[in-house]
Each structure stands twice: as C-alpha cells, then as structure tokens.
C-alpha cells in the first residue's frame, strides 16, 4: 500500500477559495496523479512531502503515518525522508553539480566543498553520465543534465518514496520520451515507490500501474491497470 489518505484542505487567496477533499487508498508501487492545472494535484504532492499541512484527516505513505490530525502527528518535511523532484528542478544555483548531489548527505551549517569526496556521489555521477559536468553550475547544463542532477540529488539520501512534480514538462519531446524510459527503468531497479503528478496522458501510459484523476480538488476517477490500447482521452 503506497498511499492511504483522507485529507481536506481549504486554500484562500483574496476572495477566492479552493477546497481539496481527497479519500484514496492506492495499491501499486507506482501512482500517477492526473489532472489539469488548478485541480489540486500539486497541493496534494506538497502535503505528502510535508511542505503544506492539511486542515484535517490523515496521510500514510508506504505504511508510515506522516500526518494524523486526531493523533496530533505531523512529521516535518525533514523527517519524512521522501525525495521530491520539482518541476523546474530547484537546483541550487550557487553550487556545482557535485555539491548539489551531495547537499543532502552533508549535515551542519556548511555546504559540501566543490571537490568533496564521496563514493555515493561518484556512483550517481557515473550512473547518470554527469562526471564530465560535475564541476559546472546548474545554469551551464542542458535540460536532461539538469533533470538527472535533480534526480541524483533526490536519490542520494535513499528516500522512502520518490515524488515527481510534472517531471517532463520542461523537456523537449524527444528528450521527454527518453527520460520517461530512463526514469521507469530506474524506478524498477531501485524498487522505490513513485508518485508522479502530470497533466500529460503520455506520462500515464509510461507509468500505467495506477492512475488517480483529480478535478477541482476532488477525485474524478480512479482506474487501476489502465490498458494502454483502451486508454480513452481523459477530460
């Protein structure tokens, strides 16, 4: 059971109000959350990561309670030990690729040094073909290299789950197909639970174990084992 939740959250912005009300239990090791912008899928992902607190309910990830309003449980983002891949990767612009990947390994008040020695970092640099750019800053990288750096940074701390926010939207179409395949293989190799949010039906096809559709803060449909050939265009 990857995800088990029953949460509600109300967001206010000026006169506008947005209600999120979700109750869902997932079964597979891969879950794709599909919905148009404004459906609340990003809010849901932030609540799983601990970057946003639900108003009420409970939230369990991979058998571990992350939030339970009645029991007064609310783990901080730091305690949740999940990896979060941001849409624009959120790489630290003042650190090079090696430092970015090593960031989560280093505790204390100082950043890892530019040439910090670490077998784990070396492993991921090699795994993602980033050795040649390890001393470059994020703005000098290509889109694919940025995504791989962000993935390596997220995976280096051995997270309990991988959360991805529209991971392929910033890539051009060819690279998108390639990175989908790469991520899928990586996920199967590491057997790390994966939750991916997207508005792109192609992402559903690539990670098609289980799909949760959101619309206006509510569950619109929940289909398991969507068969690619019978996949109807979603609303």
């Amino acid at each position, binding site marked *: 059971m990857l995800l088990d939740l029953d949460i509600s959250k109300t967001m206010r912005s000026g006169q506008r109000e947005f209600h999120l009300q979700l109750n869902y239990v997932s079964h597979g090791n891969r879950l794709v959350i599909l919905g148009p912008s404004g459906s609340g899928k990003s809010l849901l992902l932030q609540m799983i990561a601990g970057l946003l607190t639900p108003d009420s309910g409970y939230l369990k990830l991979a058998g571990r309670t992350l939030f339970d309003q009645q029991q007064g449980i609310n783990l*901080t983002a730091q305690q949740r*030990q999940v990896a979060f891949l941001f849409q624009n990767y959120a790489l*630290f612009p003042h650190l090079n690729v090696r430092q970015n990947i090593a960031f989560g390994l280093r505790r204390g008040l*100082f*950043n890892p040094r530019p040439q910090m020695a670490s077998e784990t970092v070396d492993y991921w640099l090699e795994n993602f073909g980033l050795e040649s750019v390890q001393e470059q800053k994020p703005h000098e990288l290509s889109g694919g290299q940025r995504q791989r750096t962000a993935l390596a940074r*997220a995976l280096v701390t051995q997270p309990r789950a991988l959360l991805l926010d529209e991971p392929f939207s910033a890539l051009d179409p060819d690279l998108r197909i390639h990175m989908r395949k790469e991520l899928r293989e990586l996920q199967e190799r590491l057997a790390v639970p994966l939750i991916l949010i997207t508005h792109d039906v192609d992402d559903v096809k690539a990670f098609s174990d289980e799909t949760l559709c959101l619309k206006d803060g509510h569950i619109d449909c929940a289909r398991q084992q969507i068969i690619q050939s019978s996949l109807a265009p979603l609303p």
Partner: protein
Amino acid sequence: MDAVWIALSLSLKVAGWATVLNIVLGISVGYFLARTRFFGRDLLDTLLTLPMVMPPTVLGYYLLVLVGRRSAFGSWLYESFGINLIFTWQGAVIAATVVAFPLVFKPARAAFESVDAELEQAARVLGVSEISIFFRVTLPLAWRGILAGVLLAFARALGEFGATLMVAGSIPGKTQTLSIAVYEAVQAGKDDTANMLVLITSVVCVVVLLTASRLAPGRVAERRR
C-alpha cells in the same frame, strides 16, 4: 596632526562596530520581515525606515530620551550594570547604528524576498535543518544584495554627525569623530586641520563607494560569466 589620526581611528572604530551590529540586526530583521506575514508588518517596516528620512538631530534627541539616565531604560542600565551611554564612544556607536540601520535592513529584506522559496523547500525535503538552510541556501543567495547595503551603511556611519553629537557630544580623543572634528576645526578657524580631515574623509568615502559598486549584484554576475 595626531588629533587627526585619533579622530580617524575613533571614526573607524565607531563605524566598524555600528556595521557589525547592523549586519546582525539588519539581516535578522530583514529576514524576519521577508518571511513572515502579520498585521502591522508594513507599519513596522515604515517605522524602521524612519532613520533614513528623519533629521539626525531628532533621532539623537529620541536616543537621549531613551537611554539617558533620567529614562527608565537608561536608569535601569546604570543601576543594574553601571552602564552609561551618554557622552561615550559606545553611545556614538548606538547613534551611528540607528542612523545606518535602514541601509542594511532594506536591501536585506529585498534580497531575501528575491530568493526562490522553492530552493528552500528542496533543501527541507532533503532533510537539512532550518538553520542550515538559512546558512547554506538563503544567505549565500542573498549575500551580494546585502553586502552592498552593508558597505553603504559603513560609509553612512562614518559620516554620522547629528545624532552622534546629540548622544555622545564632542570630546576630543573620546567621542570626537572625524565629521565632528571637521566642524570643530572650522569653528575654531583651524583651516589646516580642517583641510586634512576633509581630504581623509573624502578618500575613505570614495574607496567605500568604489568597493560597494564592485560588489553590487549586477557587476558580480557580469564578471562571473
């Protein structure tokens, strides 16, 4: 001649301490105002910016009323710790700190607000503590913007006259800073001393401004490329 160097070293001491205090206070307050939302935040920002527009003599008067021995705070300081700030160089430090404070906290607030909150969230998810996030992500990204303000604050503290005169007076060798010494020299008709003091002040200010403009965010980014 010696009097000139004494005034200069006193000025540097006062401005240096005022700058150190402002780095701590300005960065803390700037960060606080950038990251929290509460009723009256804009009013607080306005009040803290007042030293930039108010006549220094008015500020000096406020400080006299606040820390003078007849005030509650001033008498408490004196009764409890034997500290008297009026007519001391420490009093001059406080005057210079207050006058130069907006020059640090304003750019600091703007610099902190310009740091992408998503980068801090990314660090949070990676398990890094909040205090580490401040020193490893937020401060390094905001630092260039803050540094330019710090140098301007140093220059402003160096040139402080009005509030310092009100609080610390003009005791040669003790509280008579460079800018006050210039005034005294001119009043006493000592043109040679005045010329020397003015020249030194000008050189120091030009050096500070040149350094500040080299550290300004745009310039650094240009050189890095």
